[in-house]
C-alpha cells in the first residue's frame, strides 16, 4: 500500500497523471520511434563490427576483437531482437 502511495506521489497526483496522459497522446509514439531508430542503428553497428562472427566479414577480426568489450553488454538484447519472430504487424504500433 505504501509502495502504491509512493508511486502515486512520484507521478505527481492527478495533475501529473493528466500531464502524462497528454504526453502519451501527443508525443509518446514519437519518442518510441526515435528509440526504435536508435535500436536499429545499434544493431546495424553490431552487424558491421561483429559481422565476422556471423560469417559476414565486413571488418577485420582484429578490430572486432578490440571493440568486443563495448559490444558484450548489448549482445543478449541484440540476439533476442534478431531471433524474435516478426511480421509486418510489428510496425503497426
Amino acid at each position, binding site marked *: 500500500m505504501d509502495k502504491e502511495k509512493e508511486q502515486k506521489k512520484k*507521478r505527481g497526483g492527478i495533475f*501529473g*497523471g*493528466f500531464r*502524462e*496522459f*497528454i*504526453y*502519451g*497522446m*501527443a*508525443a*509518446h*509514439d*514519437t519518442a*518510441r*520511434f*526515435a*528509440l*526504435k531508430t*536508435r*535500436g536499429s542503428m545499434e544493431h546495424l553497428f553490431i552487424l558491421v563490427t561483429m559481422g565476422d562472427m556471423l560469417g559476414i566479414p565486413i571488418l577485420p577480426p582484429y578490430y572486432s576483437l578490440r571493440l568486443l568489450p563495448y559490444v558484450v553488454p548489448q549482445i543478449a*538484447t541484440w540476439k*533476442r*531482437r534478431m531471433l524474435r*519472430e516478426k*511480421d*509486418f*504487424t*510489428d*510496425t*503497426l*504500433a
Partner: protein
Amino acid sequence: MNSIVVPVIGALVYIIGLRFYAFWVDRKVIGADGKRATPARMFADGVDFMPTSRNILFGYQFKSIAGAAPVLGPIIAIKWGWLPVFLWILLGTLFIGWVQDYTSAMVSVRNDGKTFGGISFTLISPRARTILLIFIYLYLLLIAAAFANTVATALAHAPRIPLAIVMLAVAGVVVGFLIYHGRVHLALVTVIGLILFYVALVINGHFSIVFGTPGTNRLVWLLFSLVFAFFGSILPIWIFVQPINYLSFYIILIGMIGAVLGIVIGRPVMQQPAFTSFTVGSLPLWPMLFVTVACGAISGWHGIVSSTGTSRQLENELDARPVAAGAMFLEMMLALIALVIVGVTTPGAQASWDQLFGSGLGNLFHFIGMPARWGEIYGPVMIVVLAITILHLVVRFMRIATNELLGKALPIVRLPVVGTTVAVFLAFVLAWTGTFNYIWVLFGSANQLMASLALLIGSVWLVSENKKAGFAIVPMIFMYLTTMAALVLTSKQLLYQAVSRTDLLGKPLTSAKIAGNWISGIIGLVLFGAAVVLAYDGVKALIGHARQSHGLEKG
C-alpha cells in the same frame, strides 16, 4: 431529447463497465496478477519492450485507437436515426468493444508479447497466420481507400479549407525541422506550427478553391490526398508524418473542446429523428448499422494496437484494464460526442455527412459565443485532418506489408518508392472507381471481422488456459455472423450492379463504376473466404484445446 443526456448515460456506462464488469473479468476470469512479470519487464530492451507508466500508456492507446472512424461512423449512420446508433455504441462498447481490446492485450502479455501472427500460428494453425496477414493487408487497403475518399469528399465540399490542409503539411515539415535540427523548444515550435495552420485557414476563409466540374474537383483532391500519403510513406517519419500528426492532435483537441463546451453550455435538443426505418435505401439496419459504426463500439484495429504496441509496454498486468479497456470506454465517449454533433442538426437538410458534421459543430460553437460559420468551416477541417493523418500512416504500413508479402518473389517492391506506388495505386483505383458508401461498409466489415478474429484468438487462448471464455465467445459469434452477413449483402449488391451494369435504382453505371463494383465485390468475397477458413481452423483449435483442458482436468 436533450443532447446532454447522451454523454451523461455514456459516462454512467463508462463507470459501470470499467469499474464492475471489466474489473470482474480482469481479476476473477483472467486472474491478472500485479506480481507477475510482464514482457515489458522480462525483455526490457528500451526499444520494443519498455515498461511505461499507466497514464502515458492510456494516452498512447487512446490516441492510437481514436482516429477518424469513431467520428465518421455515427455521422454516416445517423440515417437510421440517432437512437439505434446510441444504443449500439453503448452496448457494443460495454459487451464487445473493451472485451476485444483488453483480451488482445492480455493474450499478448501472457504469450511473451507476441503479435496476432505469432499467436495464431501457435494457437490456431500455421496457415492461420498467412491468411491473417493477407486479411490485414486487404483491411489496410480498404482503410486507405475509405479515408482517401473521405478527404476528397470533404475537401470538394468545403472549398474554403484546402489551403489550411496544404499549410498543415508545410507547417509539419517546419516543425520537424525546428525540433530535430533547430533544437527549438517544443512549446514554441507547437505555437509556430499552429499559427501557420490557423492563418492559412483564416486566409482561405475569404475565397474558394475549386478545380473545374465537381467530378474533376473531387479527382484533384483524391490525387492530392494520395500524393500527401505518398510523401508520408517515403520520407523519413520524423520529417513528415510525426510532426503533422503532432500538430493535428492540437487541431482536433481544440475542436473537441469547443464541441464539449457547446454541449454542456447549450444543452441543445436532438433534432434528428430518434428512429427512421429498419431499411434505409438498400441497407438494412442489421447488419449494416453494426459495420457502419465500427470504432466507437468495437474495432479490429484496437486489437492490433493492443497486441503489438501496448502489451509490450505494460509495466504491470493490473494496468491492462485501465489502459486497454479504459481507452475503449473513452473512445465510446468520443463517438457519443460525434453523435450529438450530428444529432443536433436540422433533419431533412439536403447535405452530405461531412456538411452535416460542420453544421452540427456550428450549432455547438454558437453556444460558446463563436459564430456558427466558424464551426461549419472547422467541422470539415476536423474530418480531413483526422482522415489524412491515418491515411499517410496506413499507406506507410502498406508499403512495409507489400515488402514483406511480395518482397521475396518480387525484390523491386522492397524499394520504398515502388512499394508506396503499389499501395497508393491500389488505393486510388478502389477509391476512384468505388462507391463511398460501399467502400465504407466494406472497410467497416473488414474492421469488425478483424475484431471477431481477435476475439476468436482470445477465446482459443482462454480455453487453452482452462479459463471461462463465455464473455469473449458470445460477442465473437455475434460479430462474426453480423460482419459475414454484411459482407455477403454488400458483395451481392456490388456484383449484381456490376453484372447488370445499372445501380439499384436501374440507372446505367459508367464503366469506371462497373470496374469499381467488380473490384469491391471481389475484395468482399476474398475477405469472406479468408474469414471462413480462419473460423474453421479457429473452431477446430477451440474444440481441440477444450478437449485437452477437459482431459487434463479429468486426468
